[in-house]
């Protein structure tokens, strides 16, 4: 059995053990109040899992999960109270309305960034709160159905609710587990880490964010429905209140962000603590719950910002020095060396053509009427002094910036107007200046993010990732290394592997050699040359001129946004206009005078 399947199996076993232990404890406990607490722990764990699904994995911090919680809860309640529909149907109905509201909220809100997103999410539940209060739903009690209680999910034994809640929690845990292991979860993580890089690697960020929102909303709605069922009294404050949104966040944050164990741990520790304190001291110290939760956030943010789970795991990892992380690398597969490039047109023809491309910011022309022809199979260097517009040009080609004017033709298709992930899909890969790896994940996991765009199945993505690692020489031992401990050279190679994974025809490298020592430079140059020999066309921005003159077949020189020279390195470097651009006009004048 592959290492990956084994790891999955262990997780399932762990979940199973957790379920069994929880049930046992639940049945041993006699006091009905403690049984209620055990149920509440599970409901809040589910709420935390829901928050984790959107915010923990993708980094889009939401302060308004109470919206979905409340919508789920009120759907069930209104269906029950006003229409006599049993909660067995009402709760799933709530999930549906929750998912729909997730879409409705997501469509406009995902256009926002950073704190605007968080603020909007905060506003929704508060607005809903006022609306429901106004509609007259100040306090709604669920009616007692004495004749057929089980049909209406009403049980005299509180432990039945605990079993239901456990079922829901386990379901959400398993869903989260599978998301984490799939391209869905990896894409979300990539988005969290570096959204532009994820887009450039071919990930359709909007689609994945929306999916996360929908799943998350559904989970929260289910939690809300169950909560209403258990408490029997529903008020707008408990359903849509700030404390509810805050709790969703707190448990995930405290227990561990970005892992499905986190919210469970967080809820298991904090809920009993807060509830017990509330029960014992609530009459003397009202609001003790809020103080506990608030203090928990403050402490955890200052001491262990990612949550308890990661802190413990890091400690354990440190002790087992050098032992590989739960490995996801598949056994070496026979497909090796073959098929390193897509079908190509005859080398020697222009593969990428920029025609009169311009881009201005306000009045400043960052890229001014640039026309470049990149011949297939060559290494084409883009050079120029600082501020010449090289990175802006890359961003325009890549789709991050819209071209103000001009056309970009790649293998016969127009690139202007396409989104970055679509451009990647066409066969253009890109590395970025600042390498941002996922520090806790392995090199392999970092690279596989780039393979999804070129692979229909997750299995194929794994093969592609492994092949890419081989090409850059990071296969074997290093593939399983945790990214955090890598050297700069290894990080750059990893970036390169990620860009190579979907087997692009054209590779855009943005200052991949910056700051490396002499030997490391030679190593990377060798690998780049090898990749080029295998048929990948390379466009590279670099400042390290010593290396560039050895590597590139052709130079295009930019200065102040304009193309000032184009040709083989030896020629370009002696071009007076280029010398002037780099060293200044006075140098040229002096040089002319001394020569004469």
């Amino acid at each position, binding site marked *: 059995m592959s290492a990956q399947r084994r790891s999955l199996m262990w997780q399932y076993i762990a979940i199973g053990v957790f379920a069994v232990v929880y049930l046992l404890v639940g049945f041993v406990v006699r006091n009905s109040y403690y049984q209620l607490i055990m149920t509440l722990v599970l409901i809040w764990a589910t709420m935390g899992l829901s928050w984790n699904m959107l915010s923990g994995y993708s980094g889009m911090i939401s302060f308004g999960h109470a919206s979905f919680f409340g919508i789920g809860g009120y759907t069930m309640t209104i269906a029950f109270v006003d229409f006599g529909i049993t909660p067995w149907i009402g709760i799933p109905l709530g999930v549906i309305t929750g998912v729909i509201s997730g879409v409705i909220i997501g469509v406009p809100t995902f256009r926002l960034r950073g704190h605007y997103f968080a603020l909007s999410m905060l506003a929704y539940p508060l607005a809903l709160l006022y609306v429901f209060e106004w509609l007259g739903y100040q306090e709604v009690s669920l009616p007692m159905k004495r004749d057929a209680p089980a049909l209406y999910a009403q049980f005299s034994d509180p432990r039945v609710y605990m079993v239901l809640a456990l079922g829901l929690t386990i379901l959400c845990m398993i869903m989260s587990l599978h998301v984490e292991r799939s391209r869905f979860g990896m894409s979300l993580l990539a988005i969290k880490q570096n959204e532009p890089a994820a887009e450039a690697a071919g990930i359709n960020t909007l689609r994945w964010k929306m999916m996360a929102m929908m799943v998350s909303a559904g989970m929260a709605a289910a939690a809300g429905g169950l909560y209403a069922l258990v408490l029997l009294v529903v008020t707008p404050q408990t359903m849509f209140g700030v404390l509810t949104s805050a709790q969703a966040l707190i448990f995930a944050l405290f227990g561990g962000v970005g892992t499905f164990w986190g919210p469970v741990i967080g809820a298991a520790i904090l809920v009993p603590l807060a509830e017990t304190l509330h029960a014992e001291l609530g009459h003397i110290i009202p609001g003790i719950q809020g103080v506990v939760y608030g203090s928990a956030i403050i402490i955890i943010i200052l001491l262990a910002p990612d949550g308890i789970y990661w802190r413990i795991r890091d400690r354990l990892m440190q002790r087992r020095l050098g032992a590989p992380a739960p490995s996801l690398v598949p056994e070496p597969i026979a497909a090796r060396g073959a098929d390193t490039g897509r079908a190509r047109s005859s080398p020697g023809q222009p593969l990428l053509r920029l025609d009169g491309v311009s881009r201005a910011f306000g009045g400043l022309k960052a890229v001014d009427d640039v026309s470049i022809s990149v011949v297939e199979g060559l290494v084409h260097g883009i050079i120029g*002094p*600082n*501020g010449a517009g090289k990175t802006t040009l890359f961003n325009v080609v890549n789709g991050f910036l819209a071209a103000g004017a001009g056309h970009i033709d790649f293998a016969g298709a127009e690139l202007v107007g396409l989104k970055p992930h679509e451009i990647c899909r066409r066969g253009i890969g890109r590395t970025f200046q600042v390498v941002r790896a996922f520090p806790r994940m392995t090199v392999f996991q970092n690279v596989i993010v780039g393979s999804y765009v070129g692979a229909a199945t997750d299995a194929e993505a794994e093969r592609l990732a492994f092949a890419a690692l081989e090409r850059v020489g990071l296969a074997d031992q290093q593939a399983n290394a945790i990214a955090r401990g890598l*050297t*700069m050279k290894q*990080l750059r190679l990893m970036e390169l592997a990620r860009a190579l994974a979907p087997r692009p025809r054209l590779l855009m490298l943005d200052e991949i050699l*910056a*700051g*490396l*020592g002499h030997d490391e430079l030679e190593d990377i140059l060798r690998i780049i040359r090898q990749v080029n020999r295998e048929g990948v066309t390379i466009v590279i921005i670099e*400042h*390290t*001129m*010593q*290396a*560039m*003159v050895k590597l590139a077949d052709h130079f295009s020189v930019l200065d*102040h946004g304009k193309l000032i020279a184009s040709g083989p*390195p*030896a020629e370009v*470097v002696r071009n007076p206009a*280029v*010398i002037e651009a*780099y*060293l*200044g*006009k*006075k*140098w040229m*004048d*002096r040089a002319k005078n*001394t020569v004469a």
Partner: protein
Amino acid sequence: MLKIRSLSVAYGGLQALSEVSLDVERGQFVAVVGPNGAGKSTLFKAISGTVTPSSGALTYNGRDLLSVAPAERAQLGIAHVPEGRQVFASMTVMENLEMGAYTRNGRARWRELLPTIFALFPVLAERRDQLAGTLSGGEQQMLAIGRGLASGPELLMLDEPSMGLAPTIVDAIFERIQQVHRDHRLTILLVEQRVAEALESCDRGYVLETGRVVLQGSHDTLMSDARVRRAYLGM
């Protein structure tokens, strides 16, 4: 006045500076040149305190600068004109200059310094009530230099003043810098990418490449040395 010995700076796994040594004597005009990525800005940041060196010594008038907090270094008489101007965009030209005079020395000599700055850069006087963020690149550079002068410094440090400016404006700016050096005998440390402009009026120059000093000497020596060109263009 300013002594740098074997300064090394590493961050993000990159060795930005390796064992750099440099001297700036009182009244001198010292230029540090080199291509992009050579570590010039890192050197500047180490002197101003934005970046902490991993090893080496940095003294100013005999005093260990590494133990002085960045905001305090301004009070010692070091004025910084940072890369990219970094004017206070939401404040007026006048307010920017006033902020320059935040040091004790600046406040004491404000009455004599302000006319000097306006004489040097008349356009600042014209636009004194304009928001700094609305000035052109060249005007912002002049403002940044004026702000540096307003602190009444002993040492004026400039980080790539030519960056992002059109060549004619660059010439004008460098003329003013030379003027400041000549008329006011101010010690100047200039970090710059454009070699000729930088080396032209310097007393002494250093050429950095990938974090190391590869060449140093008087400006005559450097202007004619082929190695300077190689540092920039690779051949």
